């Protein structure tokens, strides 16, 4: 099934690949709205300030099954002032949640890298919470050639 759909998607061309997979999955995809709800839950309703976070993602991800993601939050990471939590959400996946990272002053840097799945071209939003209760956000658009959420 998986291989068939990939082959079909390839045959149909890059542009329609994501749509094909959506159709075959029959699943409802997250929306910026759903991602926004996750963020609101994380911030307790506070509106995060833009900035302080740099996100590294490829501009174009050929294979949505594994897309390298790294982020770095500008923070002193001392006992008095550090980034405690970082939420990563994807606006166009079946579920917006990607991961929540927890840091301590022992982390030394509010920085991490992992590999994520992306179903389609979409924005990745990163929200950071500091020990002082402040929130910062940044986002990046990734174009996905072949979606990575099954099918």
């Amino acid at each position: 099934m998986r291989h068939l759909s990939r082959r079909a998607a390839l045959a149909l061309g890059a542009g329609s690949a994501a749509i094909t997979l959506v159709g075959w999955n029959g699943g409802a995809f997250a929306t910026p709205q759903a991602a926004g709800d996750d963020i609101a839950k994380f911030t307790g309703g506070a509106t995060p300030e833009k900035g302080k976070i740099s996100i590294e993602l490829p501009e174009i991800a050929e294979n949505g099954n594994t897309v390298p993601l790294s982020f770095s939050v500008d923070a002193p990471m001392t006992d008095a002032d550090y980034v405690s939590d970082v939420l990563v959400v994807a606006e166009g996946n079946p579920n917006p949640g990607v991961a929540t990272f927890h840091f301590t002053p022992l982390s030394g840097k509010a920085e991490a890298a992992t590999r994520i799945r992306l179903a389609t071209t979409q924005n990745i939003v990163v929200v950071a919470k500091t020990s002082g209760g402040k929130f910062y956000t940044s986002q990046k658009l990734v174009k996905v050639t072949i979606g990575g959420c099954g099918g």
Partner: protein
Amino acid sequence: MAETPKIRVPKTAKKGEIVEIKTLLPHIMESGQRKDKDGKTIPRKIINKFAAEFNGKPVFSTNIEPAIAANPYMQFFAKVEESGTFKFTWTDDDGSVTTAEEKIAVA
């Protein structure tokens, strides 16, 4: 069934140095979105939590959703003030836990 994690921690560091740590656990990370050939949804089975501690104190952890790719890879940092042991823990949806330890000598 328990797979062996791949871990990279420097053997030595200077006091107060921020060291880079890389971990990877071979795991399918079945998203719960895929269907088998009969059209039935394949149940979700992922690593849903990863945690790293140093000498018993939390350094870094992450709550993981199915949107993390197969063979979950994590790269992060730790500030080391003393020699000791890192302990890494991966928690599966089925409740099984994989752990690993790495020592570092701090001068």
